[in-house]
């Protein structure tokens, strides 16, 4: 016991899940709903919803150094040794709810071409399943996340029913873009959001705090605590501040027998279970497997292929913005309402996927200017009026192809708060990705020029950064020599070990990954249930 909370192992568990983010929470909710005894272990704390306004202030006010979601420099230590520095802690959250506490909440399905990229273009690899295999799980995931959306996207893959909630209508800023997009032949459409456009799941409709990323005080933005709550209501145990140190297996190396975890009182415990699901994201999932090396698995658990940690991918941001000679009405909300997937599918191997975004939050808000200004009174107001109100911008996510040299590995020279080697993110950009970022910039420049924008900034191949979508590090496949998990998300090596989340992606497309994470997690839960 620590602080009145029982963190000792459950005497009998059907399923032990590592990670209480969206993947782990969805699996926990599904399996506990089916009547199984479920234990979820998470490295981070359980956050009090009452603190969300305080966390918002941390974000809005300079001078408050406390991280919004309590990133711990020792617990979350990492290194970055690739050509590109990777700021791993910029947007990940350890704790109950995981990084959905921080995310923006954009939820698109991958396109059909994403699952067969090699067949269509010769680039990268095909997934071992296709869109139709995942389609029912996408529909179920949209229900689970109460997605607000409209069926107005001519480029989207086929769907069977409307989104659970109506889409958020386009913004005034979107209306400014409309004519320019038409003039340059760019078709736009709505954005599916995991954000309540109407009250749902015990949460209100969005009330427009405008700080979605990194914190939604109202709870109208979906986060995985909803499914944690559901799992707990079904009888599941969700244990916070219980970082799993390693997984242990039986003598034959065929089955995982226990998750060994630490608790705040410096005690180690062993949670046994019939099935284990690791759902700790694209960095910590491979790290845990690598930390679980044994005689049977000297290179890391479930790593007979040698590919655990390999093929790390992210999406790259490409953007452009400037000012107009008229008000653009930015910063009322913190989410987008218009996108274009027109340049998503790849015509050949000349470029990867591009998802174009029209931002509703370009430029600074009045408080951003005021709190860092060196003037006061009327002079400050003049500065704010000059700095706010006429900004406008486009963004884009660009696909990065999987490459073996981009990887998560252990850095034995540095350890975390439990003396475990930290993750080392080895990350670089390839020429195809650079070309695609340039192409995204070309499209953005054409639209903004048509609109008459005085372009003030560009994020291109040289100053691009990651979107913090960690993918690909325990890839899925049918060949045990070329992949870590099979199409049922079970590791090739251990019969009762499932990996749920973005680490199993074969390619990443250019869609925000969480809806696909959710769909795959629901699929994984079905397969685990079949075995129980």
């Amino acid at each position, binding site marked *: 016991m620590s602080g009145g909370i029982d963190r000792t192992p459950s005497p009998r568990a059907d399923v032990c899940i590592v990670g209480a983010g969206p993947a782990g929470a969805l699996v926990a909710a599904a399996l506990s709903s089916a009547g199984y005894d479920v234990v979820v272990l998470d490295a981070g704390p359980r956050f009090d919803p009452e603190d969300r306004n305080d966390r918002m202030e941390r974000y809005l006010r300079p001078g408050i150094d406390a991280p919004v979601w309590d990133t711990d420099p020792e617990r979350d230590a990492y290194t970055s040794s690739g050509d590109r520095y990777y700021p791993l802690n910029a947007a990940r959250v350890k704790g109950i709810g995981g990084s959905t506490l921080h995310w923006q909440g954009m939820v698109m399905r991958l396109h059909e071409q994403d699952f067969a990229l090699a067949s269509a273009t010769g680039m990268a690899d095909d997934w071992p399943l296709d869109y139709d295999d995942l389609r029912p799980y996408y529909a179920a995931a949209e229900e689970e996340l109460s997605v607000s959306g409209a069926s107005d996207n001519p480029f989207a893959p086929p769907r069977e029913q409307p989104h659970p909630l109506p889409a958020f209508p386009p913004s005034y800023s979107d209306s400014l873009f409309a004519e320019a997009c038409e003039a340059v032949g760019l078709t736009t459409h709505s954005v599916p959001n995991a954000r309540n456009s109407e009250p749902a799941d015990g949460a209100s409709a969005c009330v427009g705090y405008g700080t979605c990323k990194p914190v939604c005080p109202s709870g109208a933005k979906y986060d995985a605590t909803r499914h944690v709550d559901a799992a707990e209501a079904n009888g599941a145990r969700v244990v916070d501040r219980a970082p799993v140190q390693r997984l242990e297996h039986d003598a034959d190396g065929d089955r995982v027998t226990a998750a060994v975890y630490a608790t705040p009182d410096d005690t180690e415990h062993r949670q046994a279970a019939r099935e284990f699901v690791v759902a700790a994201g694209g960095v910590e999932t491979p790290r845990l497997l690598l930390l679980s090396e044994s005689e049977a698995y000297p290179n890391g658990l479930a790593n007979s292929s040698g590919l655990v940690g390999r093929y790390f991918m992210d999406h790259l941001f490409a953007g452009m913005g400037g000012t107009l000679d008229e008000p653009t009405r930015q*910063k009322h909300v913190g989410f987008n309402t218009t996108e274009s997937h027109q340049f998503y599918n790849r015509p050949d191997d000349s470029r990867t996927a591009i998802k174009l975004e029209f931002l509703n939050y370009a430029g600074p*808000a009045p408080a951003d200017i005021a709190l860092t200004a060196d003037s006061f009174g009327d002079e400050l107001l003049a500065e704010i009026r000059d700095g706010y109100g006429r900004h406008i911008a486009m963004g884009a996510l660009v696909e990065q192809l999987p490459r073996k040299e981009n990887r998560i590995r252990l850095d034995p020279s540095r350890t975390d708060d439990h003396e475990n080697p930290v993750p080392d993110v080895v990350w670089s950009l390839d020429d195809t990705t650079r070309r695609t970022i340039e192409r995204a910039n070309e499209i953005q420049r054409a639209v903004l020029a048509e609109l008459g924008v005085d372009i003030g900034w560009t994020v291109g191949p040289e100053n691009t950064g990651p979107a913090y979508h960690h993918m690909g590090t325990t890839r899925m496949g049918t060949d045990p020599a070329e992949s870590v998990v099979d199409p049922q998300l079970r590791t090739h090596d251990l019969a009762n070990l499932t990996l749920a989340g973005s680490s199993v992606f074969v390619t990443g497309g250019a869609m925000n990954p969480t809806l696909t994470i959710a769909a795959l997690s629901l699929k994984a839960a079905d397969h685990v249930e079949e075995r129980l």
Partner: protein
Amino acid sequence: MELSRRDALAALSAAGVGSIAGCAAPTATGPDGGESAGGGRASETASVVGDHELETLVAVAEVVYPSAVSGVDDFVRTYTGGRVDGAGDYAAGVADAVAVLDDYATELYGGEYATRSREDRADALDYMSVDAVDPDPDGTDAQRVRHYVVNELLYALYTSPTGASLAGLENPPGHPGGTESYRTGPE
């Protein structure tokens, strides 16, 4: 443009005192034991943020707020009342920063900050370099004044609908102003 009680409550929401909204009007207490700041720790807060501190905050607000806003006195008192009730550390920080301002004004002009003319009050901030430093609750005198007094007041104003509307934004980040305004064009 008149700052309203609703603006102060909205600013409190952005400042992490969400539970205040909808409750009884939070009013800071005077040294003689007036109405408490929303109940709670009235006697505790009365000892560190009393009438003098509130008077000083209003005096600073009159300098750092634009001349276009009115109702500053009530706005600052309502906002601060909810704020000091919300966090003991904040109240202590405000009281400390006010004392710093008073010491500085006394040395410079021979009187406490709130007693000086508007011009003197503006000059005092300028001489202290409050305009030039980064806010830091644990920093130098000027940094603490910037954090606990100036930025607190600016944050309250420019995350309120009326304050941000001075620049054309009626639903600023931090304010739960709904999902209508983002769709409407400028007036």
